[in-house]
């Protein structure tokens, strides 16, 4: 006797989300007469425990061979319902989701039959698919248990330490000569005012000393191939021209170096030599020769540093080394940059010396900064008596700049104003703001305290223009509360520039085919339920590359990403999705067209002269199946026959 499928259809009300627009009980009645549907029911919340039990009971009592759950998007609960059918001894691939919420009830108005008609078509199509599904078992495979962390800011540091503590080997790749990221530049941290370096540098040292972490600073990921569990990354270790083990940090090389260039660590407020260490607590703790600034290595034009080095640590013959390593999991912690103040036409296009950004002000406040912690303005070194802080500079301004809120600026501006008032007790601090967003633990109290105790004047409104006159910056703005125009003669203006993703986000997304959101930040697998995962298996996000965050949130996400990576690496084997391409050798002519179409090199023509698929490499896109001129290739559970019947069901009569 031929196999006769018995399909059960389970229609979810999703409260009123579906039932408010779609006539769910009518659907359950209509579908029961459809080919091979032997059971149907509707229920308020199919994903709830009683809903799940209904499915399990029906599978057993009605002897169902396949299940259609008409509910929300498969991205929400496909896995939930597949686990449910497995508990009732049905293969997980005998369950399919008919998306009648996101792609039907939520987008079509109530009060007519058309959403119900469309939902019925979607369900019929899904029935046609599931009744032709084959049962499949995942393919088990070995994997690497190493983790790659890209980016050595606080999020990457936390992630690397957590993964390493769990016993897995980690390679931490950092572009710049030191780890620490932007946090190393900060003076003190809100709301507790701990000194940033004091809480950060011990962690940096821990990274350097951890037996499971290999730190590759001044290095860049140049390419990544492979897939979850078996990524292969090519990393360039750029030459520092200084042997870090031999360097004793005496600083003689720096002293004799004749070249001075802009100091990035001090945000351009100071200069550094061509051979330099970003800051004295940098890790790796060694000097780096910046060849772009150096007078020249080939031919050698100066070599004073090498001559001054008693430790013989300088080696001009160093070249880039390329390392290739296998990784099971990857954590992208590429961090942020500030939206350039050169783009702020209303605030002088970055052309005024005394209009600085938040990170520059951090350097002015920092005890290790260019002014030793005294607030002195860049143009003439004077202590500013009137400082204007402008919040939302480049943020929340969809017409001219970025539409999003950068999340940390309200807090750090309050901190800046407070620290300024403490350093310059006679000074006046003004803060222009749109709203105060202080939604963190003890944050609101901190801002209230700054407003009341530190006598910082908060003005609700935007600054319309800045102009330089008589050594002062004229700041014109509006105080929305009094309704009056405000004009302030400022000695220094600090812009709370918007946070933007660093270049590393785009580079990493290109290496790994990651999705970026509209603003260039990494797009997570689910905005609420899977905030540290990407849609690419085994790739996780930590820190501000995924969106603006403060330090505690970055650290939390670093630990979250680490937990996900540890969970993956701890599995003895990984299972590969069995939805791959199959080959009918009788139909294959051996033309080899499919081989060139496969982006994963999963296909080959074998010794028998027909196509052969490597199931571990095949990702199941099905591009080859559509390109095969003899229909010899088919994608399991999305065959031509299934598509044809789905189309037929959708068009209706």
């Amino acid at each position, binding site marked *: 006797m031929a196999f006769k499928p018995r399909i059960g259809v389970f229609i979810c009300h999703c409260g009123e989300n579906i039932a408010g627009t779609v006539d769910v009980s009518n659907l359950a009645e209509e579908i029961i007469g459809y080919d091979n549907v032997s059971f149907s029911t509707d229920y308020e919340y199919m994903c709830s425990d009683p809903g799940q039990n209904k499915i399990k009971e029906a599978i057993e009592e009605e002897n169902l061979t396949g299940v259609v759950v008409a509910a929300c998007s498969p991205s929400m609960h496909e896995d939930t319902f597949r686990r449910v059918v497995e508990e009732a001894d049905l293969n997980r691939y005998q369950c399919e989701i008919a998306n009648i919420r996101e792609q039907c009830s939520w987008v079509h108005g109530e009060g007519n039959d058309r959403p119900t008609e469309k939902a019925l078509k979607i369900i019929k199509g899904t029935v046609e698919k599931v009744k032709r599904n084959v049962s499949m078992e995942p393919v088990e495979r070995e994997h690497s248990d190493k983790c790659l962390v890209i980016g050595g800011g606080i999020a990457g540091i936390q992630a690397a330490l957590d993964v390493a503590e769990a016993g897995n080997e980690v390679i931490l790749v950092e572009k710049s000569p030191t780890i620490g990221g932007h946090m190393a530049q900060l003076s003190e941290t809100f709301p507790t005012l701990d000194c940033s370096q004091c809480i950060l540098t011990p962690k940096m040292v821990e990274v350097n000393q951890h037996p499971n972490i290999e730190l590759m600073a001044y290095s860049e990921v140049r390419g990544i191939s492979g897939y979850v569990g078996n990524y292969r990354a090519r990393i360039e270790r750029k030459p520092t021209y200084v042997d870090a083990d031999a360097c004793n940090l005496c600083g003689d090389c720096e002293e004799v170096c004749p070249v001075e260039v802009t100091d990035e660590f001090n945000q351009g407020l100071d200069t550094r030599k061509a051979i330099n260490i970003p800051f004295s607590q940098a890790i790796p703790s060694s000097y780096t020769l910046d060849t772009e600034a150096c007078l020249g290595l080939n031919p050698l034009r100066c070599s004073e540093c090498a001559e001054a080095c008693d430790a013989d640590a300088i080696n001009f013959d160093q070249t880039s080394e390329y390392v290739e390593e296998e990784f099971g999991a990857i954590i992208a912690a590429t961090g942020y940059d500030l939206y350039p103040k050169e783009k702020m036409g209303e605030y002088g296009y970055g052309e005024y010396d005394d209009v600085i950004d938040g990170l520059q002000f951090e350097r002015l406040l920092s005890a290790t900064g260019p002014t030793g912690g005294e607030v002195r303005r860049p143009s003439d070194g004077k202590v500013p008596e009137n400082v204007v802080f402008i919040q939302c500079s480049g943020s929340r301004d969809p017409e001219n700049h970025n539409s999003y809120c950068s999340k940390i600026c309200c807090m750090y501006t309050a901190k800046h104003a407070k620290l300024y008032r403490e350093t310059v007790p006679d000074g006046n601090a003004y803060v222009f703001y749109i709203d105060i967003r202080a939604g963190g633990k003890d944050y609101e109290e901190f801002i209230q305290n700054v407003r009341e105790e530190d006598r910082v004047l908060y003005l609700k409104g935007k600054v319309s223009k800045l102009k330089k006159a008589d050594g002062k910056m004229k700041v014109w703005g509006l105080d929305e509360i009094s309704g009056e125009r405000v004009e302030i003669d400022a000695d220094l203006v600090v812009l709370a520039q918007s946070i933007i993703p660093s270049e590393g986000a785009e580079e990493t997304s290109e290496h790994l085919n990651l999705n970026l959101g509209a603003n260039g930040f990494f797009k997570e697998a689910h905005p609420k339920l899977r905030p540290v995962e990407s849609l690419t298996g085994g790739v996780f996000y930590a820190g501000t590359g995924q969106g603006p965050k403060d330090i505690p949130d970055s650290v939390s996400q670093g630990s979250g990403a680490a937990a996900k990576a540890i969970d993956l690496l701890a599995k003895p084997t990984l299972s590969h999705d069995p939805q791959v391409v199959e080959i009918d050798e009788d139909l294959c002519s051996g033309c080899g067209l499919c081989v060139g179409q496969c982006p*994963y090199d999963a296909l080959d023509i074998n010794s028998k002269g027909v196509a052969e698929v490597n199931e571990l490499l095949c990702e199941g896109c099905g591009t080859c199946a559509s390109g095969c001129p003899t229909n010899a290739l088919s994608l399991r559970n999305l065959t031509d026959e299934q598509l044809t019947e789905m189309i037929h069901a959708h068009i209706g009569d």
Partner: protein
Amino acid sequence: MEFEPKLIGFLCKWCSSAGADLAGVSRKSYPPNLVPITVNCSGRIDVSQIVKAFKDGADGVLVSGCHPGDCHYTSGNYKTWRRVALLKHVLDDFGLDPDRVRLEWISATEGEKFAQTVEDFTAEIKELGPGPFRDVKK
């Protein structure tokens, strides 16, 4: 009664179907004429399936994938791009207006674009009128 086109939408799972989901989450309403079929990759769309949809009585077919460069499977959308371009060349010979097939790139963040695309496509096919095989007995 006003002509209501029957439309099939082939959406790739990673970008366009997620974009359609986002249209739902953001409650961007659009006409219910298009019935979606989610496939792993737009590269899975065999042009013969598009022709079959018309043969079954569809009035229009939308194929939507990830933006060029963003394909989850690296390059499936490039194959679709070429295949649909070729198909459009021969549709005339089948007595089908090439405008009845539309290829779009809609990302997971473009819910609004998805809703707008379906709305525009529905209006456009309404203007073109019923497909030539709508009433052919199968």
